[in-house]
């Protein structure tokens, strides 16, 4: 099977703190990680490969040169090849422009790697939290999409999947050549072996820029090609003066009861 996984390098948003004096986010020293949902997507690909050695996993990431680190780490976890999608002109792209660049890159890769039976994305990135790029790529490639996927079983020419909905979950069947976005599964992620780490470090990651991606129309990329613009950002500060309630559990319960009753 021919699988493509889209990953994004993100700051670990759990570790971001707020500078209450300057009213800004403190981003310095915050580590960069593979977006957790993308790491699950890669794990799903690896699990398919565990069962069928005749599986090829390609990983792509759009971002600055530093994002190669995320790709190297994907290689050490089992991806067969990795490409960085990077060009100064990509900067400032919103989700529509980003999904256009990624879709055109995937079409470019199909020329050398063949059509992908399965494209996997995380359900959303933990920095932007939009959950838009996956479905937008699916639309651009005219692939069926299944979002919030929790389990994947490979059948002969199709996948049987379990997806989450607001009210429960669904079991669906979808033929090969589809895109799925992945939510947190019930299993844990694997760790890279030392051998794989060494191998990944030696693997050269090719960068696809505009000179190689001649199928990209620059009118639809970057700040200029993005329909949405950020007007303003501000720090979400929450500070409250709280009243402490102390005493024995019974005294506390009595106090609480009075507050609730009001």
């Amino acid at each position, binding site marked *: 099977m021919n699988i493509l996984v889209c990953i994004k390098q993100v700051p670990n948003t759990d570790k971001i703190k707020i500078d209450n004096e300057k009213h800004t986010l403190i981003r310095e020293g915050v580590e960069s990680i593979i977006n957790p949902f993308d790491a699950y997507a890669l794990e799903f690909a690896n699990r398919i490969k565990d069962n069928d050695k005749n599986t090829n996993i390609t990983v792509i990431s759009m971002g600055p040169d530093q994002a190669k680190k995320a790709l190297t780490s994907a290689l050490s976890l089992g991806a067969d090849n990795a490409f960085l999608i990077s060009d100064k002109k990509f900067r400032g792209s919103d989700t529509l422009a980003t999904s256009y660049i990624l879709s055109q890159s995937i079409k470019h890769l199909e020329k050398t790697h063949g059509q992908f039976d399965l494209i996997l994305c995380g359900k959303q990135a933990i920095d932007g939290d939009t959950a838009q790029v996956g479905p937008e790529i699916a639309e651009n490639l005219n692939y069926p999409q299944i979002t919030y996927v929790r389990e994947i079983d490979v059948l002969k020419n199709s996948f049987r999947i379990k997806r989450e909905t607001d009210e*429960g979950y669904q*079991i669906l069947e979808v033929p090969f050549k589809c895109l799925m976005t992945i939510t947190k599964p019930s299993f844990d992620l694997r760790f890279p072996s030392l051998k794989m780490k060494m191998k990944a470090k030696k693997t050269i990651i090719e960068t696809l820029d505009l000179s190689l991606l001649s199928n990209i129309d620059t009118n639809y990329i970057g700040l200029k090609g993005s329909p949405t613009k950020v007007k303003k950002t501000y720090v*979400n500060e929450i500070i*409250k003066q709280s009243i402490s309630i102390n005493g024995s*559990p019974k005294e506390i319960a009595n106090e609480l009861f009075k507050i609730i009753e009001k």
Partner: protein
Amino acid sequence: MTKDKQEMWVFIECFKNGKPKNIGLELLNEATKITKEKNIRVVAIILGNNIIETTKYVIYAKAEKVIYINNKNLEIYNTEAYVTNFYNLIKNYNPQTILIGATSIGRDMAPRLSARLKTGLTADCTKIEIEELSDNIIWTRPTFGGNLMAQIVCLENRPQMGTIRAGVFKKAELNFSNKGTIIEALYILTNNKIKLIEEFLDNENEEINLEEAKIIVSAGLGIKNTKGVQLVKELASELNASLGASRAVVDSNLISRIHQIGQTGKTVSPKIYIACGISGAIQHLVGMKTSDKIIAINSDEDAPIFSIADYKIVGDIFEIIPELINKIKLSKKD
């Protein structure tokens, strides 16, 4: 009324039985509020099966006009049928703005639709307003795991689209004397490659009304086990409250996902929010910080939940909650 009056569309998500979910009604009410001083018509868009009653209902809930497609293929949401049919309506009527709930359906449909339309979409908004001197919507949304708020505008492309979180706005009181236009549109057959084999619903055709609850008793990992869950459930039931949960608790399969509050769950603002053993990750706080009164019980006195709590109780929930339940029971006897 001129023919060219601009329209703000609101997608009314429905249950399988054709009844509307709260989210669409909340957006309808907010759309009416923000368009009050503007020459903009608020239109409800309904795709589904057995939705004829709902077309009237949304007019009572403030829609000035309804466009609907009633077809059995729309009974259960599927991406291709919904996107193609919605796209076709947009191409026929050219609305200026489209509001869609940031539900699992909305977040599946809206991005695919926006890519087909090649227009801007802002995800997961918690506030919408119209710019004073233009018809641009200012879409406000939390980002960076809730640490940062961003205001987004879509300047040139139309329609401008956004998904909006459930529970941020209140739905309108029904007014049965409201009048409006109802238009039926034709269903377009689509080639759906995805086959639904089975569907499991936690609670068919009803919502846990977290968004509308007056009191929410919410559980964090401090509840530890099923015994803790029982305790919190009992407290909720004694208080006639709804049950909420943090993501960590949901991920540990202690409480089902429909109860989840926070960045990836629901947004709530009850009169009283009782956080039991919730440490208070920013992702949780963004979903409940606007509650009127926040009571937090946690054994860790440095838990971040205390930074937004009105009442801080450092202690063991396994000792305090049983006492509280007793006290409530006693008061009912009096």
